[in-house]
Every structure is written in C-alpha cells, then in structure tokens.
C-alpha cells in the first residue's frame, strides 16, 4: 500500500529526514516511535502533502502511484488521512459544515453521490455513538476551544467518518488521560481491517498497550534505526532511546 524509499526531507536549511525506508501493506498496523525532534511529524506531514517541507531525494509510492506528485486534497480523496498532532482551530466554521464539505469532497472523488444534510446527520450520529462523541460538537467551530483530549478524539472521529485506507496517527495519545486513551484506541481498533493500513506515531509505548502493532520502527535523527515486532516497543520503554541510538550505525534500515 505504502512504500517509502530513501526519503530525504528538509525544511528551510534544516535536513530532517535522512534516508527513510518503510513498507506498509494493507491490513497492517505499524508504529513509528522516536524521541522528540527525530522527524516523526515531518514524516507524517510529508505523506499528507504539507508544502513547507521539501523532499530532496527519494520517492513515496501509494497504491503504486507517486504520492509526492499529488496535491494534499487529492491524497485525502485517495484515502490518505492524517490525525494531526496539533489539530488546527478554524473559528466560525462549524464542525458540521466542515465535516460535510470534507465527506462530500471525498465521496465525489470516489464516484459516490453527495450526502444531503439529513443523510449526513444520520451518518454522523451513528459514528458519534461509536466514539462516544457529544453531538453538540457539530455546532461548535472546528476545534475551537476544544480541550486537548477533545481535539484528539475529534481527529479519530473524523477518521472514522471519512473511512480512509491509509491512516496516519501523529501522537494521538499525547495529552490524553487513560480513559480517553482507551476510547481513542478502541476507535482505532474498530477501524482495523484487511483493506486498511494504520501508521501509529508515538513517543510513548503506552498507546501500544491498546493498539497492538504488527511492526514497530524506531526513528532517530531522521533515520529508521531499528525495526521489529511489538516487543520492540517494550524494549524501548525499558532501555530508552539512548541505547538504541548507540546501536544506530549497525541497525538495518527499517525494511521488511
């Protein structure tokens, strides 16, 4: 589904990603772990099409197509979804309007009919129930005045609504208390399916107790320095990133 080959990315004069390799198949859940500043969000944003980052080398294939050539909204329409580490507030725009615009844009791209207000509401209410989201959210401006936890939950809710094929979660766990974490995790687990791949980016191992990944990759200073199964997360938790970094030179690139 997703293949990242030798990806180099910079922002301004700062080189952030220095040769990332990663292959993700449909149906798999991968976790990318790494210390602050290692380039996790950069990777997520580049996959989503953020223009502030410049890809200087390498390529990214998504379902066989050159992902880097697509505009961000095209990627979204093709099924790429990123849950933002810092969801953006859009004052004045109600969540209902926003979600309806997003859903219909994506439906159009998939050749489905647009939903009218009634159909949209029915669908939204059904998804709300699953994630325990308050219906009042619809009338509030997008993310405006939301608590940290509400914002993160809203991201997962949007993901459930838009039914992407590639889900990228950028530190969705940070700032969540344990109850919220469980809700988010069950929302994500509910989306696991053979046709869908999920990339869980996190700094802590905690989330991975609830969303159990098939593979774990460790990103340090812009490179994937180790890859392994879910036990790698526990090892990291124990030893910390420093030790892993020590072995960085010898580590195989995160290929499978």
């Amino acid at each position: 589904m997703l293949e990242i080959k030798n990806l180099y990315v910079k922002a301004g004069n700062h080189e952030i990603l220095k040769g990332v390799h990663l292959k993700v198949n449909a149906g798999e859940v991968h976790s990318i772990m790494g210390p602050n500043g290692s380039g996790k969000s950069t990777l997520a944003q580049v996959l989503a099409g953020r223009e502030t980052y410049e890809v200087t080398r390498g390529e990214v294939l998504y379902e066989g197509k050159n992902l880097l050539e697509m505009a961000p909204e095209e990627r979204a329409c093709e099924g790429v979804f990123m849950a933002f580490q810092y969801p953006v507030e859009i004052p004045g725009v109600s969540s209902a309007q926003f979600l309806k615009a997003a859903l219909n844009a994506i439906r159009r791209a998939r050749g489905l009919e647009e939903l009218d207000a009634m159909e949209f509401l029915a669908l939204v209410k059904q998804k709300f129930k699953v994630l325990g989201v308050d219906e009042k959210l619809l009338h509030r401006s997008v993310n405006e005045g939301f608590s940290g936890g509400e914002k993160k939950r809203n991201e997962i809710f949007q993901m459930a609504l838009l039914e992407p094929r590639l889900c990228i979660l950028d530190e969705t766990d940070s700032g969540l208390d344990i109850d919220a974490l469980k809700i988010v995790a069950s929302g994500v687990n509910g989306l696991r399916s053979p046709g869908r791949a999920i990339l869980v980016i996190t700094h802590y191992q905690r989330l991975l107790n609830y969303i159990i990944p098939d593979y774990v990759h460790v990103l340090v200073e812009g490179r994937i320095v180790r890859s392994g199964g879910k036990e790698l997360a526990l090892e990291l938790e124990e030893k910390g990133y420093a030790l892993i970094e020590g072995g960085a030179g010898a580590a195989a690139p995160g290929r499978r």
Partner: protein
Amino acid sequence: MSTSTNAIEALVNREYKWGFVTEIEQDVAPPGLNEDTIRLISSKKNEPEWLLEWRLKAYRHWLTIKEPTWHNVHYPPIDYQGISYYAAPKKKELQSLDEVDPELLRTYEKLGIPLEEQKMLTGVAVDAVFDSVSVATTFKEKLAELGIIFCSFSEAAQEHQELVRKYLGSVVPYTDNFFATLNSAVFTDGSFCYIPKGVRCPMELSTYFRINAASTGQFERTLIVAEPGSHVSYLEGCTAPMRDENQLHAAVVELIAHDDARIKYSTIQNWYPGDKDGKGGIYNFVTKRGKCLGRNSHISWTQVETGSAITWKYPSCMLIGDNSVGEFYSVALTNNYQQADTGTKMIHVGKNTRSTIVSKGISAGHGQNTYRGGVKILKNATGARNYTQCDSLLIGDKCGAHTFPYIEVKNSTARMEHEASTSKIGDDQIFYCNQRGITKEDAVNLIVNGFCKEVFRELPMEFAVEAQKLLSVSLEGSVG
C-alpha cells in the same frame, strides 16, 4: 519558512461576470457640470419647479465646498467636468413592461433579474435603474392595492409631489457632505417607497442599479417612508460593465421610520471593482441614513460590499424616537487593489435607544479595508445601549485592515460594549482542510462564510445564498 502566506499568496485573475456592455441607443448629455446641466436633467424628468430650485441650491452650495480628505482611501483627482451627468436608453413613453426595449430586458435577464413579472421570484418586486433612468418597476399594481407606492424617483417627483417634497432632504440635507450635495444637484433616478400606516409590505422591494454608459456618473436617490406600524424590507443590487476608466457613483438614500415602523434595508453592492492591477472600477461614494423618528421604530442596514474600486459609505441611524433601534450588519470585501472605507454612525437622541453594529471586513490581495464607526449618545438619551463588534479577516500578507471607532457619550447611563478581532487565514488552516479533501478555494470560502455568518443571516433568504456565491466569486484567485 513562515506559516502564514505560502499557500495563500498572490492574487490572480478574478473574473467579473457582470462586465458586459449593452448595445443600446442612448441619450447622453455632453460632459460637464453647470446650472444648464441641472436644468437639462430636471426638464428631461418633467420635474416641478420647486425641485429644480432645490437642485440649484444644492449646486450653488456644492461650488463652495471641498471634497473630503479624512478617509483612508486614495485616488487621483476626479474631473467633475469630464463626467456626463445624464444617460438614458432612448425610448418612448412606456405604458407597460411589454414596451421595454427587449435589449434591456435581456440585459437584466443576463444579470439574473428577469423583469417579466411571471418569471420573477415570487415575493420580490423590482425597480430596475439603467444609468440615469428607471426602466421598469414590477408588481406595481399589486402593491398599489395595499396603498404601497413603489416607483421610480422621477415618477414620484411628479405623481407624489407632496410626499417627496415633505421628505426629500429631511434625513440627508443638501448641505450634508460633498458627495451628497453633488447628488442633490444632479441625481437622476432611483426608487421611492411609501408604506402606509399599519401595512406590512407582503414582498421584498428591490431596486437593481446598472451602470452601462461610458464616462457617465450614476447619481441615484432612494427615499423610503414607513408610516406608523408599517413594515418593509428593501434590497438593492448593483453591477456595472468592465471599463478601464473609473466611473463615479454617488448615491443618497434616506429612510424615515415613524412610530412602531420597521425598515430593513439590504444592499448587495457589486459594482465593477477594477481589474487585478487596480485599473478601472467604480468609485462608490454613498450617503445612506435613516431616521428613526417614531417611538419603537426600527431601522436595520445590512450590506454586502464586494464591488467598486473605492467604497466610501456609512449607512447610519438617527435614533430620535424613544425605544428606537438601529442596526448595521456589514460585510466588506476588498481584493486586488480595492479600497473600502465603510462603517456606520449611530446617533442616540431618544431614551432607551439601542444600536447594534456588526462589521466584518475581509481583505485579500492588496486590498485595504477600513472600518469607521461612530456612536454618539446625546444628553437626553437616558438608558441608551450600543453593542459593536468589529472583526477583520486577512488573506495573504499584502492587504490591510484598519479600525477607527469613535465614541462620544454625553449621558452617564449609557451602556457600551465593543469587541474587535483581527484574524488571518493561516496556511495551517488551509492545510488542515486540504488534508480532509477540501480544496484551497473551498477552504477559503468555508472560512470566509463562517466569518460572515452573523451578517448573512440578516439577509432575506434568497439573497443570503446570492451573497455567499458572490463572495466566493470575488475571492476567486485569492489563494495561490
């Protein structure tokens, strides 16, 4: 790299869809302004002697005053002798709509304003003003059954002399300001509405102004009188062809609301704004004022200003009757090199008078948007209240927003609230929308419409939709 401007950069060709010219034989006065010009206009319109005298007084006063310079708009000097003050489609006396030149009907059809009554939006009566004359007024008879007068100003000046004479200049005197004085001397047409006591006008009244002829000015005058207990909702729309030269539009609108009367006045102003380099466009210098004369009277201005190279207007309310209410809801958008200096004045004279001001300024491209608002609470206005909210939205980093609130309070019981904000459409907001499948243009429209919603909901239904569309067209190309 800055987070704010990358995606929302330069402004490219924005299309103005109303820029065509109607090929029609016109009767155009030679350029120039003197007493003979005024006599010519007055005689073309078969006006009574007193009206000519009034015009001449205005003209003589105009000669003694200077164009104002306090506003925050910049333009080369206007050559008042280079303008033609009268242009009209050649025609015979019209008895009915069937006699209107088909070319004119087609023009309005193209503009989305069919004048044949059976085709009209039900519930909207239209007066169509083409350059200096009113070409058609629809639903007149139906309204007349209720005693409502809705006709062109020229017709009113002949047929309803007593009313016109009583109210003309009673809100905006001919000495009011440079542009209003000029208008008083040379105004050509406009609409007149009179709603008798206790009558609620059953349909929207609407005037559609169209500038067509080159090198002409448009100087229309609208007068609306609402007798005690009556209600009326009135809407005006405006467009003009695309021309490289600037054209002057200086209108005056006077509203009078008696006891318990209610006037709702909505404007969708879409005069040609000039091209993307700032060439051409209408100079829109307008004086609009309402007098809440009676107790519990209510005047509400709603405006969506997307057109014109320069907009200079301050629809205002004089709250004279006790418990009277004045409202001003405004969206002003400037893109490319447009400039707008707009706002309102609320003058509280009576007791327990209330006013609400909601101003939304949107600047894109090199657009400059100034809000200028005055709230005056006079000595006897015990219990007066004002609420002002003034928000600016910036798109890109070459545009500007400016706010000048003036407040004068002479009664200590007054309660004033003022809120202001400036925000910018950020790249991160656009990207967030993109990531959810929404294109840049749609994202900007979504954000802009959200920003304007408090104003849009004041517009009559049919026009709220139109206003949204207009805004999105006006912003076309404002995102890179």
